[in-house]
């Protein structure tokens, strides 16, 4: 019984699943904060949404890292040879 492929597939799924939780919560918080700020100061909507987009991309990067790790496990796994 070869365990490495099975463990790799499970780990890839868990990496994406748990790696998406943190960024999802963080993006929800930041969008809520930006909405609040825009509602208080509609004049600054341009600056706020620009900063929001940059921040969202930064947060999303953590999820993307998890995706890259998962793809490495599936497609470029050194243990599977």
């Amino acid at each position: 019984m070869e365990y490495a492929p099975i463990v790799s597939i499970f780990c890839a799924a868990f990496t994406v699943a748990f790696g998406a939780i943190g960024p999802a919560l963080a993006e929800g918080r930041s969008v809520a904060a930006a909405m609040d700020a825009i509602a208080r100061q509609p004049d600054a909507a341009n600056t706020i949404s620009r900063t929001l987009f940059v921040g969202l991309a930064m947060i999303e990067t953590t999820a993307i890292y998890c995706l890259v790790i998962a793809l490495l496990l599936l497609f470029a796994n050194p243990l599977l040879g």
Partner: protein
Amino acid sequence: MNSPLDSTVLFQMGPVPITQAIVTTWAIMVILVAGAFLLTRRLDLRPSRRQAALELMVTTLDTQITETTGAPPAPYRAFIGTLFVFILVANWSSLVPGIDPPTAQLETDAGLAALVFLSVIWFGIREGGVGGWLKTFAAPNSVMIPLNILQSLTRVFSMFVRLFGNVMSGVFVIGIVASLAGLLVPIPLMALDLLTGLVQAYIFAVLAMVFITSAVETGARASRKDIKDHPDNNKDP
């Protein structure tokens, strides 16, 4: 399913394998250069409709650079603008059937990130000289030197993985959905992919701009003031 980390080799040119991404990149470069040449051939003080559209684009770019950094946009316009336009066209080239965006390959993104890394060094040295640029690593004080060196490498690496991951995941998801369910189902995902491509191009350009300005500003401050006069450094044992 093909691994997204591999690249398709089209043909060999001597010892150099020519991949699909290289061909697409060169096609995009030719289109951009020829387009820029043709569109700016006859510029006039009374702008035609075409020239007005171009000027609108350049002015928007200048405004973005000034708002992001507070610096005059002229020295950075060419590099940042080229980065943005190239990444945008490369991301959106997936709209052409049968073409994978070259930014979905590791090599293209690594090349772009290496360009940003070198340009940070170049703009930093041009502003404060070699000494001023080296002193930016000792800001705010010399304890931070290893961390600053590490940071200058990791932020470039994170730009590279961010662009690769976003574009590649878009292509990958569309590939999976298209292989599962036929004709019209991938279209909303492709629309989302267009938005992602635009946002990623914008973010790559903005981050490059932010890194360059931070190097330039600390370099200028360090070269204006001798590092011993700095109040933070006197606390240092």
